[in-house]
């Protein structure tokens, strides 16, 4: 694999990892604070994507960027206060069952309203087009429009969709913002303390329940961001929720339950694994090798999970004794 292909696969891997990370961060936040595995998180992503389509059609995409995460925050808050909180003293399996039931209801309702096929999500005019990466000393014809970024090592020049690059950037900003929120604010301090020992924190006179409800809303809002920026890439259909939920679950398991850093690393790891197997499969010439790699490309994320589970059952960043 020459450098150009490597570079593009690397970017594709980052972009896949960006979506996995946005969904998995929400999952791991909810799990870390409330101890609930949210099988409806993929459904939240779908709600966000559909809402983004509707809003960008009627009002414009810029509005969607602000309205959808806010809307999802409310949806998350409502979900936690209205449904999930009645399940805190019910068995874990019941919690999973109720979120699973909710996921079915949301998926089927969306299917009923919008139909089973994916609906087109038009990019805003400023978001379409390609970014051109050119190597040192390359000559790029003047006629080619779009953003140009120099990248040492590239032979000639190569393209990558602008929107996917933007998705990586947005994901990075969200991750950074979440890090700052949790690490440097009072709210974050309380939440982190609550993740360690909710009983102690509530004994100290802090309303942990309220803080955790906000965390649930926050996780849903992150899924909202993922829906707005990821929707055009992943397509908007009633099946996309589960299609991204499963790898995101794997991200959480591989990274270590409740670990935000772990989720981030694992998301990039899975994105890269997926992108590079696809890249190698496309390059393979030998028919047997090509067949093998095409099959591998379908299951590589699971194989990474297999290896991690065998070598480090707690996940990459899971701590001993925490959420065993």
């Amino acid at each position, binding site marked *: 694999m020459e450098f150009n292909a490597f570079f593009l696969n690397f970017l594709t891997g980052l972009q896949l990892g960006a979506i996995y990370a946005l969904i998995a961060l929400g999952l791991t936040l909810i*799990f870390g604070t*409330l*101890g609930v*595995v949210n099988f409806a998180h993929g459904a939240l992503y779908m709600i966000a994507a559909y809402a983004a389509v509707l809003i960008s059609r009627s009002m414009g995409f810029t509005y969607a960027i602000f309205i959808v995460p806010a809307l999802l925050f409310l949806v998350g808050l409502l979900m936690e206060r209205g*449904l999930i909180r*009645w399940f*805190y*003293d*019910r*068995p*874990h*399996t*019941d919690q*999973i*069952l*109720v979120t*699973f*039931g*909710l996921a*079915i*209801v949301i*998926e*089927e*309702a969306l*299917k*009923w309203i919008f139909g089973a096929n994916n609906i087109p999500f038009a990019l805003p005019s400023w978001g379409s087009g390609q970014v051109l990466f050119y190597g040192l000393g390359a000559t790029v014809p003047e006629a080619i429009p779009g953003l140009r970024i120099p990248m040492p090592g590239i032979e000639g020049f190569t393209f990558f969709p602008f929107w996917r690059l933007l998705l990586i950037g947005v994901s990075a900003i969200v991750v950074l913002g979440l890090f700052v929120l949790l690490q440097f604010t009072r709210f974050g301090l309380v939440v982190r303390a609550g993740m360690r*020992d*909710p*009983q102690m924190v*509530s004994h100290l006179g802090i309303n*942990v*329940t309220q803080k955790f409800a906000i965390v649930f809303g926050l996780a849903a809002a992150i899924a909202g961001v993922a829906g707005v920026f990821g929707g055009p890439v992943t397509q908007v259909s009633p099946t996309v929720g*589960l299609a991204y939920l*499963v790898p995101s*679950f*794997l991200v*959480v*398991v591989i990274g270590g*339950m409740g670990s935000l850093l772990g989720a981030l690393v694992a998301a990039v790891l899975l994105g890269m694994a997926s992108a590079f197997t696809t890249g190698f499969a496309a390059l393979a010439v030998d028919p047997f090798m090509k*067949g*093998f790699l*095409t*099959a591998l490309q*379908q*299951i590589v994320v*699971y*194989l990474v*999970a*297999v290896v991690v*589970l*065998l070598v480090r*059952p707690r996940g990459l960043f899971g701590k001993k*004794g*925490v*959420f*065993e």
Partner: protein
Amino acid sequence: MSDVAKPVYAGADERGGRAGMWNGRGRDLVVVAIIGMVTFTMPLWLVELGGYEALATKIVIWAIFALGFDLLLGFTGLLSFGHAAFFGTAAYITGLSLKHFSSDVIPAMAFAFVGTLLVALFIGFLTLRRTGIYFSILTLAFAEMIHALVLSSTLQRWTGGDNGLTGLHYPTLLGMNLRGIAVFYFCAVILVIMFLVAQFLKRSPFGLMLRSIKENPMRLEYTGINVWAYKMMAFLISAMYAGLAGSLMVIYEPYVATKFLHWSTSGEVVIATVIGGASTLIGPMIGAAFLMYFENVVQGMIGEQWRLILGLIFAAIVIFLPGGLIDIWRVVWRATGHKLLHGRRHNVPDMELTEPRHTDPRP
């Protein structure tokens, strides 16, 4: 029913003493007789309810599937979201055997049995390394892996890819044709046998051990029991039931749909078991009948939105009636003021959450 004064342990069966015909073996026999009667006469009365004859076969097959699923969920407390892997694997192997090897169902089912066992060993070994919620996530993931692998373009030549496996020979049993009502009786006999097996397991020390694992795996671990081995056994037995159901599904209709491996099949068996009532043997079978009836008859009445309605029913049952439909009589009993109840049979209690969530379950 035992008398009120007798202490009843949560999760233990309410069948307390051994005395009396209604307790113990006597009761078991009556239950089996009723189940057998209801099952074997199903083609006669199901038509009256708007069903069709073949629906009875589907109900019986799904009853086997749900029965096995409940051995894992209701008795061991493990919620699997990946049982489609076993159902589908067995279906594909049965299909391949019917297509390429022989039209006799016995070798087909034998191959499917071995194949399912191997898949279950693989998935069980990986998923049972972690407890509780990890198990649900990982079973879902590995079932999706098998689904993706079977449908991949590389294996398309053997599995038929997105079209499913078609062109199978009509199945035979020792030279007899297995079609129509014969398939039904074949499946019905197997259901009654599998019910007897499940009842035997439930009454056996092994079954008691599984229920203890559900109640408190840690305490069992401290007493020196190899909890992992018991969980693995339960997982394998449950997978065998799913595999058997998958094989029968292909024998009933010689065509392997890709849906058999899809997560929605795993979801449906969860729905059937929980709607009917986990931790009982009869509940999941009622749930399976409910699901199949809903999917095939009610669908015709309410149209495309049947899945939405089913989802709503499922969610409502999880929220308000965790014991499932089988629990309705208890609710009625309680409402009419009877005191026969000793404690609600929890759907699926597990060790961490017998106390409120905010008393930290983590060590």
